[in-house]
């Protein structure tokens, strides 16, 4: 291989990726659609550190003293709130975007670990309901597959206003993933592109939404917790309006949150980082006097138990994972390196969830490819991963002297960068300085 001439200088503005994208756009005349979430560097949980206990704080004994992890979601109005063993839930991902095997595996893994999974845009499948001890049913603008029977089968209802990968945007499931079954569930012809609206068809603002929530409660006899999911943008105001509309649980999805198919320009340029969204949401809840009464679920870029613990220390009651759950099932596995290469990608880079040719059998409706995912084995892998996240979070909480993950607090955190300190509203490490905080 020829070594590059050291005198060559790459433009920081027009780097190789920017040049390649201009060339691709000029060649095809169409923007890039892909899956995954934001890939650009963002201030994130990696920029925070825990202050473990020493003299001024008293730690709990690792491996000996209890550090509880359970969480109750939706006890504000619902007769039957969810009681989960761990505060790590599975985010909404549709059957259509994902194979039936993947949905089943998510249900199996979540149930083994004692947590919930969530439907997506496209309705509830029997595989998912059958394998999910706790299933959250999403209520989306498209209302694909929406029906009162499934609504009553659900354990909670999540009204989706937006998601972190595309706040303000609807969805597009491309025709190659529209099998007969997917089309039937969505009442649309097989093989055509399916547009999901970005606005709900029968309400237009928080006052209307309050009445919509009343209707859903009436239909389900006030049994089910009602979540409201928003993509992180004007989070402070949106959370306040969600509470006003009557939410039992607010879900805030930061811009690192994933998607099955959205324009790259949208994913990378709309929304705010998860780290910046959490303090805004918590402030809104605290000012309304409902923090810990209306539960807050945070998603968008959760990978490790440290991420879980940091989100909870900042004030979340639970987190949701999507991309990480798919990776646990086998997405981007080196096992499929040859197949990824044939698609022009590689393990660690594959994000073409929109085109239905996923060799891991996850983001596909091709029955042959879907066979590459064993739902039982996938469920086992997901459960393992969820347990590791939980144990990691417990380890950090015990080091901070906390007997429950919910006892973690912002005071346990410092930031490594000025940006993270300002967004997370915790001091820069080694200082008492929180940029932007009033003295």
């Amino acid at each position, binding site marked *: 291989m020829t070594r590059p001439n050291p005198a060559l200088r790459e433009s920081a503005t027009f780097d190789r990726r920017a040049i390649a994208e201009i060339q691709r756009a000029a060649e095809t005349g*169409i923007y890039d659609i892909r899956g995954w979430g934001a890939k650009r560097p963002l201030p994130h949980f990696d920029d925070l550190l825990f202050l473990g206990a020493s003299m001024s704080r008293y730690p709990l004994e690792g491996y000996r003293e209890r550090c509880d992890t359970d969480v109750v979601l939706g006890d504000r109005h619902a007769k039957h709130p969810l009681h989960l063993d761990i505060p790590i839930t599975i985010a909404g991902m549709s059957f259509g975007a994902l194979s039936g095997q993947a949905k089943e595996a998510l249900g199996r893994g979540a149930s083994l670990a004692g947590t919930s999974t969530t439907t997506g845009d496209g309705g509830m499948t029997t595989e998912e309901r059958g394998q999910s001890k706790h299933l959250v049913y999403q209520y989306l603008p498209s209302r694909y597959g929406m*029906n*009162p029977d499934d609504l009553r089968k659900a354990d909670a209802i999540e009204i989706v206003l937006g998601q972190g990968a595309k706040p303000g945007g609807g969805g597009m499931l491309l025709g190659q993933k529209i099998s007969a079954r997917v089309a039937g569930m969505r009442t649309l012809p097989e093989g055509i*592109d399916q547009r999901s609206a970005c606005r709900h*068809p*029968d*309400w237009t603002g928080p006052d209307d939404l309050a*009445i919509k929530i009343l*209707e859903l409660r*009436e239909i389900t006899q006030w049994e089910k917790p009602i979540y409201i999911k928003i993509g992180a943008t004007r989070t402070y105001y949106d959370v306040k309006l969600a509470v006003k509309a009557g939410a039992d649980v607010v879900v805030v999805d930061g811009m690192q949150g994933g998607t099955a198919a959205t324009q790259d320009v949208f994913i990378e340029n709309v929304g705010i980082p998860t780290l910046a969204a959490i303090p805004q949401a918590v402030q809104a809840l605290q000012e309304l006097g409902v923090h810990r009464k209306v539960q807050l679920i945070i998603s968008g870029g959760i990978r490790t138990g440290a991420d879980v613990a940091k989100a909870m220390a900042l004030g979340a009651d639970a987190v949701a994972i999507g991309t990480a759950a798919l990776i646990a099932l086998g997405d981007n596995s080196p096992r499929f390196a040859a197949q990824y290469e044939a698609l022009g990608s590689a393990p660690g880079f594959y994000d073409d969830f929109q085109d239905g040719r996923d060799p891991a059998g996850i983001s596909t409706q091709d029955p042959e490819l879907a066979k590459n995912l064993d739902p039982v084995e996938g469920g086992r892998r997901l459960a393992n991963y969820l347990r590791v996240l939980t144990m990691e979070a417990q380890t950090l909480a015990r080091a901070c002297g906390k007997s429950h993950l919910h006892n973690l607090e912002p005071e346990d955190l410092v930031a490594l960068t000025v940006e993270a300190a300002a967004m997370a509203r915790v001091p820069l490490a080694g200082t008492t300085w929180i940029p932007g905080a009033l003295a």
Partner: protein
Amino acid sequence: MAAIVSERTVLDVAESGTRAVNSALMAADVPAAVTLANPRGAHALACGLDRDIAVTVEGHVGYYCAGMNQHATVTIDGSAGVGVAENMMSGTVRVRGDASQSAGATAHGGLLVIEGNAGARCGISMKGVDIVVGGNIGHMSAFMGQAGRLVVLGDAGEALGDSLYEARIYVRGKVASLGADCVRKPMRPEHLTELRDLLTTAGFDADPADFTRYGSARHLYHFHVDNAAAY
């Protein structure tokens, strides 16, 4: 606590409240005919019904009356607010007066009859329901309509059938404008027949030959950059 005590029970909404009335309507397991008195614009009334029951509402109702209806026959002897019969699956809902916006939104089945006018977005994202409107309908009606039939005896507002999928639209009066990918189509014998049946079922005396059929041109079924201006 409201309760259905005979085949012809009258429940007072103002006195009992929406929760008690809906609970009573859902709870009884025998065919029944129930009159709801004094609705006073209550929201979410008679929603989520899932059985053979005939409900007559004596007056105007608020949002989402008869939402997600299954099997029941609901008659509103007044006007209805936003989203009447939204996401209905089966059964019949009849509005004697006018209906606000999003009537029959996303409904999968059954028959919605509006004897007066309907506001904007009538039949938005409809997924199999039949909607018959005696008067006019507002703008963006049948937006992204996927399946089912929308019949309008009066006029239709702007952007009728925008981004239409497979829903069929019949309008007797004027259409202010058609939305993207919605086109006028010929009335073949089978369309005259189905329209006659729909009008008869809905209780309207009108000649199917006076109507024009609209449907999807199917040009936007697959995203293509050449159609970018239409999106």
